[in-house]
């Protein structure tokens, strides 16, 4: 049994689907358009339409909806916290009151809006990493940021850093899991006591984890050097990015849907 489940934390799920086959630049730009659309949503009911789109995307990308939903698990607390803040701190027509706490009609709307907005942001952003391998994602970002290189922006380095960070998520989760087991086997109590006590109990987990991370980083740098890595200049790609007609169609469809949803939302 594992203490930590890392499967859906931004991990790529390979499949032969139309979404997987899209150019990574198309997927990045589509996600930006979708996120902008979600930010513009005002009516909580409008999110039903976004939920439908999510289901459709899950079907097209051949990734089970359960896996997509699991991607939002790490932010559930943040969503609840954000919604709670808006629920209790928004002024307006009071619906319920208890001491200093009060819930207003505007607060309920705001809490629903902000909570759903955050929830959908994470789910749609998650689709990008679920359907695009880190290498493709890095190639896409590098290509999109390429024009800024003339102003000294390190596009390749940034993309490579992101690839490696995503690649090491499961490895570091396994490592954390191993350290946790080792400390629990030696009598560490990580689940009882107050917040401060529990934070203190995690120090013996964090210290070896940091040491291992630095050791791994050094070993990886050596291995990359041994495989002739010397930055972006002169590098070729096994699968060079090629923008196809389907990519143009996909991005146009996404922009069309976003505009349609926003207009629908504006009309109430």
């Amino acid at each position: 049994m594992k203490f930590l489940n890392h499967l859906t934390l931004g991990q790529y799920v390979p499949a032969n689907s139309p979404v997987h086959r899209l150019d990574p630049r198309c997927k990045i730009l589509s996600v930006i358009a979708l996120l902008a659309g979600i930010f513009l949503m005002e009516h909580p009911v409008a999110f039903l339409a976004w939920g439908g789109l999510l289901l459709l995307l899950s079907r097209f990308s051949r990734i089970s909806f359960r896996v997509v939903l699991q991607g939002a698990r790490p932010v559930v607390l943040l969503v609840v916290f954000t919604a709670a803040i808006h629920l209790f701190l928004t002024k307006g027509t009071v619906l319920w009151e208890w001491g200093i706490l009060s819930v207003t009609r505007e607060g309920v709307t705001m809490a629903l809006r902000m909570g759903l907005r955050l929830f959908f942001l994470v789910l749609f952003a998650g689709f990008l990493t679920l359907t695009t391998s880190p290498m493709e994602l890095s190639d896409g970002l590098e290509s999109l940021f390429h024009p800024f290189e003339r102003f000294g922006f390190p596009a390749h380095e940034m993309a490579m850093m992101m690839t490696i960070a995503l690649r090491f998520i499961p490895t570091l989760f396994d490592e954390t899991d191993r350290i946790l087991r080792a400390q629990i086997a030696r009598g560490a109590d990580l689940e009882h006591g107050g917040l401060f006590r529990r934070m203190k109990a995690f120090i013996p987990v964090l210290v070896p984890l940091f040491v291992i991370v630095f050791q791994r980083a050094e070993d990886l740098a050596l291995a990359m050097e041994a495989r002739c890595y010397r930055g972006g200049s002169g590098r070729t790609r096994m699968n060079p990015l090629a923008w196809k007609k389907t990519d143009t169609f996909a991005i146009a469809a996404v922009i069309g849907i976003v505009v349609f949803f926003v207009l629908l939302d504006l009309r109430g």
Partner: protein
Amino acid sequence: MEPEAVCALRGVSFTYPGAAAPAIQSVDLTIRRGEWVALIGANGSGKSTLAKILNALLIPTRGDCFSCGYRTDREEHHWAIRSRISMVFQNPDNQIVASVVEEDVAFGPENLGVPPARIREIVRESLCQVGLEEKRRTPTYALSGGQKQRLAIAGALAMKPECLVLDEATVMLDPQGREDVLKILRDLHSKGMTLVQITHRLEEILDATRVVVLRKGQIEWEGELPELFERVDRFPEWGLEIPPLVRLTGSLKKRKLLPESCLPSVKELLENLCP
């Protein structure tokens, strides 16, 4: 440098920054094309340091090292050396760069600027060589330890090297994983690949054409396998453990039940005892 030499070390010493004693001291060693050289020795004997010197990952503080005809102390030669001498490290998790099997194998050729169509061909060939062609699109985190090490070997082979240096590449593997890696090495050697295998497991060097024993950063002994097993009495001094099979073979030889040429492998014992 001899024309047949892949690597030649002349009086090579190396001291890590801040260390009091050198990790490698006055080493003279030539590795010839097509050889399978086993570098053995106790922990801290300098095996891994020597491997990194061959690949120009470390530069000797004294002496000269030539790899594939290039001086390793010239930075402009490093790229040429590393594209000809590939390395496989101990922990496969620390050398896999990409999240998908085929993308990781492609990393080396991409760095070398190989055209895309050729990279795809090389990736297919390399994965076939290590028996991972079915796992082409598998996420690297979903591989077993043995499969990850085979992937690391495929990544090294994709550079189309003249020589493969394996730095304790089997140490983290289970018996099946170790056997799989050794099978790949036997296959590569039969096709003419020069191999430098660093290990402290004597059971794994039975296919080596030459053995070099390192002790305290110096070459203590050098020769062929049968000669090594004639010096079993020196193993404790060299910091090497005598495996049970080596003990058994030695005892049977003393009782004249086995010929002197018999190597301590299950296959050879069976062939000699149950012909």
